[in-house]
């Protein structure tokens, strides 16, 4: 397995961590029954829970382009030190993004997000040339 595909697998585990953490916070707020219910109406959630739900939504949004980047690099055979490094920079950035959101690290969360996005675009641009 190439470093880029391994990074993609690592990204899946970050997603699982984001799901697990936000689920735990949600259950702390509204209980198991509230979580299992169809959640009609406003959910009254704590700041921490809302942050983790936004972090998960952002993670979902950013995995999409990263999957595209990995697929493009693999299919064009442009793997190399640059794409491997970019892929793992993405993984590091997205790992840090979760605590950065949960604990309100300002302005670091935004910088971490930007690093992840730039890493993705580095891979996509590399696959084109």
């Amino acid at each position, binding site marked *: *397995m190439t470093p880029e*595909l*391994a990074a*993609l*697998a690592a*990204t*899946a*585990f970050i*997603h*699982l961590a984001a*799901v697990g953490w936000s689920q735990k916070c949600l259950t702390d707020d509204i209980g198991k*029954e509230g*979580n*299992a*219910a*169809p*959640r*009609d*109406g406003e959910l009254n959630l704590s700041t921490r829970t809302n942050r983790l739900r936004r972090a*998960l939504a952002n993670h*979902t949004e950013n*995995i*999409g382009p990263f*999957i595209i980047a*990995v*697929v493009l690099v*693999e299919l064009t055979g442009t793997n190399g030190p640059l794409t491997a490094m970019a892929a793992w920079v993405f993984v590091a950035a997205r790992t840090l993004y979760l605590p950065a959101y949960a604990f309100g690290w300002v302005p670091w969360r935004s910088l971490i997000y930007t690093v992840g996005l730039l890493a993705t675009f580095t891979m996509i641009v590399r696959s084109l040339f």
Partner: protein
Amino acid sequence: MTPELTALALAALLQVAQLALYSVAGQLQAGTRAALKPRDDGIQLTGKPGRIHRALNNHFEGLILFAIAALLSAHAGSSAFTAACGWIYLAARILYVPAYVFGWVPWRSLIWLTGLVATTLMILAALL
């Protein structure tokens, strides 16, 4: 095409179907004009259309993870186990929609968990 990739293609079509269902149900409740406008004030769907919307949003999260699992399986090699996981994921996500809309408690959560576990096992199988 590996069975996992076929399941991924069908899961993508399920997402299109969920989007169409959301569009129809949402417009029936909030009106087509509200849907066409830039939605500056947000549209708060209630009742079943709200549930359909939340089920759609949840599948974005599940589908992106499953896409990774299916790609890794295609690369690492398909097995009977990973193929079964792929079909279990698809079945779970199809059942998830009525489970949400009709408020099957706690089955919706269990169905959701089944899809998540199947996806995770596929990824682990590709790595090991």
